């Protein structure tokens, strides 16, 4: 494999203020995001004055990873720090449209991705608690990690995968669509009812399926495509592509998040190897995802382009088989091996009876909870209590969130422990450029003017600005810059990098 996959997720959270005279989601989101800075959850707090570098000028391509350039003066009086926070774990936290949004740092494997996405949930909860103190006593901020208000408004959970630019986009589309459409049986979060003019149903597997209207396109907010064509690699664009996947649900279940990132990155490796092709092309992918979402048995067949019929489980099994056949020994890292095992386990059990996974996958956990609740009270599917239960499954409060209650009481499976999640709120992954970003923010908060995914601007002694480009996401790791960062001042760091532009950082 030429370029090891690097991945990250962006989660938009739903937000509401209970007992507010008027709902203003932009103000509420801003309050929550800004509260995190004052909470010192992201100490050293001076990092909170660091702005996001929106200038995506990237003429500074250096095949070795970093390149420094000098900007003569501070370009503009940026005030974007008000709704932007670059986190010392290397992630980003800001207000997007009318939602608080958390982006994980770049992660090199699915377990780290899970860890940093879960750290994001804690970051939101710390922010929420801090922000709530500024409100009236009877007001509560409620935050949901879900994707819909059940009235046709959806907000996203996006995955990003860094890939080699060499793979033609059409090849990715052909190989990926059947996988994404069928993977919802593993990654769906479950939803009561239908939306967006789709066929009525009591309960469906995916929160997002109803919102997709075409196969490929650029938009993310209306007429959403299964494959998004945004081409903004935040890295050297001659070497890399950042595949932006917008079709996924926000997951609470650790296994759902872990497998979502794990199996998708494996399938992208297979596509890169050229072993997927058009084997599984579907006749009508947009209709198929809605049909699969409504088939709680996972046994109904969908039609392939060549008129063969397959169940979603069979399509997933075919991808799994390709992975078992074609991944090279060095690609079968312990995490990849574990993902393959759990992928098989989940498919085997879905085949027998999906309800066997009622401690594992979100859509099944939620279904089981709702079934028991309805049985007890005799509520219809469209009863407000049932809808409330669906919504509250995604509540991030430890005392109110139903998923979190199930987790605490040991009713759902864990892959992580609490200590490592808390650690991930404050420390970046060590094996991507997030290490450089997060560590610099921790160590030199007063010396950093702004940052973005692929740049950091340091404030020089004379007040001038030094921009360090980080165009190679696999560099800037602890292995490469750990010792340097431990033993230098900010000035020395910039000098060292600028003085050694020929050296790989």
């Amino acid at each position, binding site marked *: 494999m030429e370029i090891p996959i690097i991945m990250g997720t962006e989660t*938009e959270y*739903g*937000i*509401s203020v*209970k007992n507010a005279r008027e709902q203003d*989601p932009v103000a509420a989101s801003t309050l929550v995001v800004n509260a995190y800075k004052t*909470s*010192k*959850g992201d100490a050293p707090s001076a990092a909170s004055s660091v702005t996001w570098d929106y200038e995506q000028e990237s003429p500074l391509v250096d095949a070795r990873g970093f390149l420094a350039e000098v900007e003569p003066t501070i370009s503009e009086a940026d005030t974007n720090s008000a709704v932007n926070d670059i986190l010392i774990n290397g992630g980003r936290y800001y207000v997007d*449209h*009318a*939602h608080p949004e958390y982006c994980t740092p770049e992660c090199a494997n699915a377990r780290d991705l899970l860890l940093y996405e879960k750290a994001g949930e804690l970051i939101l*909860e*710390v922010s929420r*608690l*801090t922000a709530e103190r500024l409100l009236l006593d009877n007001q509560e901020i409620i935050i949901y990690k879900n994707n*819909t*208000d*059940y*009235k*046709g*408004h*959806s*907000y*996203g959970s996006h995955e990003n995968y860094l890939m080699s630019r060499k793979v033609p986009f059409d090849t990715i589309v052909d190989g990926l669509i059947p996988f994404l459409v069928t993977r919802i049986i593993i990654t769906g979060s479950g939803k009561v009812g239908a939306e967006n003019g789709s066929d009525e149903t009591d309960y469906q597997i995916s929160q997002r399926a109803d919102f997709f209207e075409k196969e490929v396109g650029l938009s993310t*907010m209306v007429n959403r495509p299964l494959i998004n064509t945004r081409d903004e690699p935040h890295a050297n664009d001659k070497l890399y592509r950042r595949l932006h996947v*917008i079709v996924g649900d926000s997951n609470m279940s650790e296994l759902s998040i872990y497998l979502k990132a794990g199996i998708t990155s494996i399938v992208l490796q297979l596509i890169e190897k050229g072993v997927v092709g058009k084997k599984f092309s579907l006749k009508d992918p947009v209709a198929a995802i809605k049909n699969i979402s409504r088939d709680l048995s996972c046994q109904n067949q969908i039609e392939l382009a060549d008129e063969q019929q397959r169940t979603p489980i069979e399509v997933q099994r075919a991808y799994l088989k390709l992975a078992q056949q074609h991944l090279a020994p060095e690609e079968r890292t312990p995490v990849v091996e574990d993902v393959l*095992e*759990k992928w098989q386990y989940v498919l085997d*059990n879905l085949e027998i009876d999906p309800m*066997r*996974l*009622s*401690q*594992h996958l979100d859509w099944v956990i939620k279904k*089981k909870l709702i079934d028991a609740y309805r049985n*007890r009270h005799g509520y219809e599917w469209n009863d*407000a*209590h049932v*809808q*409330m*239960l669906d*919504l*509250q499954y995604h509540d991030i409060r*430890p005392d*109110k969130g*139903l998923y979190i*209650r*199930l987790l605490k*009481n*040991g*009713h759902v*499976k*864990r*892959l*992580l*422990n*609490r*200590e490592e999640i*808390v650690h991930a709120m404050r420390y970046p992954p060590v094996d991507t450029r997030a290490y450089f970003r997060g560590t610099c923010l921790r160590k030199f908060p007063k010396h950093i003017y702004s940052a973005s995914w692929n740049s950091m601007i340091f404030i020089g002694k004379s007040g001038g600005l030094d921009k360090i480009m980080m165009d190679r996401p696999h560099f800037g790791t602890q292995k490469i810059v750990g010792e340097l960062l431990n033993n230098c001042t900010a000035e020395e760091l910039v000098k060292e990098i600028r003085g050694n532009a020929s050296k790989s950082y």
Partner: protein
Amino acid sequence: MSTEKQQEHLTRDVDETEEIQLNVEPSEMDEEFVEDLDTLLDEIDEILEEDSQEFVENYIQRGGQ
């Protein structure tokens, strides 16, 4: 509550990581789950937002991405 306390609160109850047992039949774990679920259901009406009808109706978001 100070932020340190909040974080402590959040970190309390560190459970042992419980690896998914691949060789355990899900149905075995299931019986235990059903019992525990009953306990949760006992609590759920207290946990759920009181005014479900009104709350659900008023939960309106602007579309995101």
